[in-house]
């Protein structure tokens, strides 16, 4: 079965999810993993979908045209076989919090350090909070450390960035327990 990544974004209002999922339901699509959230004033949907017969984007024809007419942007990506499968990640799971007065490069500099150490970011959220005069930037991310790296080492690595960017950074283990 072919899988597709479907991304939809537009000004938030009630009814977007039902309009999208009605179309998918009528087409005979399955929704596997999905994540939807409000970012700014926009509602953003990311869905991994599958269809027993469809093989490429042309198969969908003009099915998403009604969404475009409602001012939603639609993007469809055909996944290569296996692209829907969640990779198994070994290593410690951690949460990284970064916050401080807003300045350019916070996300880039932090994630560059992580990327260079093969830290795999699994979730990332940022938000601009505070007042207009004193904006504060907050970034929260979850990541899986490579087996050769532990949390204390990562925290040490990020310490120099903390001084350089004048932000607060904490790293802590996420205790995931199977009961």
């Amino acid at each position, binding site marked *: 079965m072919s899988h597709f990544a479907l991304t939809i974004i537009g000004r938030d209002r009630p009814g977007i999810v039902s309009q999208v999922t009605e179309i998918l339901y009528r087409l005979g699509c399955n929704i596997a993993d999905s994540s939807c*959230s409000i970012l700014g004033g926009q509602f953003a949907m990311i869905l991994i979908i599958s269809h027993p017969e469809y093989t490429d984007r042309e198969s969908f024809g003009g099915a998403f045209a009604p969404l475009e007419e409602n001012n939603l942007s639609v993007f469809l990506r055909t996944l290569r076989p296996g692209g829907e499968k969640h990779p198994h990640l070994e290593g410690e799971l951690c949460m990284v919090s970064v916050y401080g007065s807003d300045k350019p490069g916070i996300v880039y500099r932090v994630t560059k350090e992580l990327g260079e150490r093969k830290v795999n970011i699994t*979730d990332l*959220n940022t*938000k601009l909070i505070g007042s207009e005069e004193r904006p504060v930037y*907050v970034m*929260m991310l*979850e990541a899986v450390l490579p087996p050769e790296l532990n949390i204390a080492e990562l925290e040490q690595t990020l310490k120099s960035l903390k001084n350089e960017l004048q932000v607060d950074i904490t790293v802590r283990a*996420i*205790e*995931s*327990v*199977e*009961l």
Partner: protein
Amino acid sequence: MAAREIRIYPDPVLKTICSPVTIPDDSLDALVQDLLDTMYQSGHSVGVAAPQIGDTRRVVVVDVSASKLGRDENHGSLVMINPEILDREGKKTMREGCMSVPDYTGNVTRAEMVVVQFLDRQGREQVIRASGFEAVAIQHEMDHLDGNLFLDRVSNLKTDVFRRKKR
């Protein structure tokens, strides 16, 4: 006696409200042994409830003594028959998973401390005060006796930090 297969949702036994044990008998002791065997043989489990092995009596076993999180504060191997929570205090959020719901985890907030009354394997009344990870494990396993899975308790999406009331 032996380790038994863990029932996986949507097995209806996992949504069943279990019945109190009235008369202790040999079959009860066999159930207790199977629960313990199932827990210890899985290698990583810190608790199993009767419905997870297909039995609808109110029995759970918990042992967090070998886990990193429970090592320093625990009551060792606990067999709890007809357990009731008498008191609870505080809050503790952990990312829980469950052998009966593979491949999914969620943040669950539970009491940090519980006082639990139960009958032990010999049928004696016991009251213990458990806290931390052991308290969480007890509450998770006891939930199974009422047909509740951690999915019924997820308190927030993991990105909840940004969700708050508008100023």
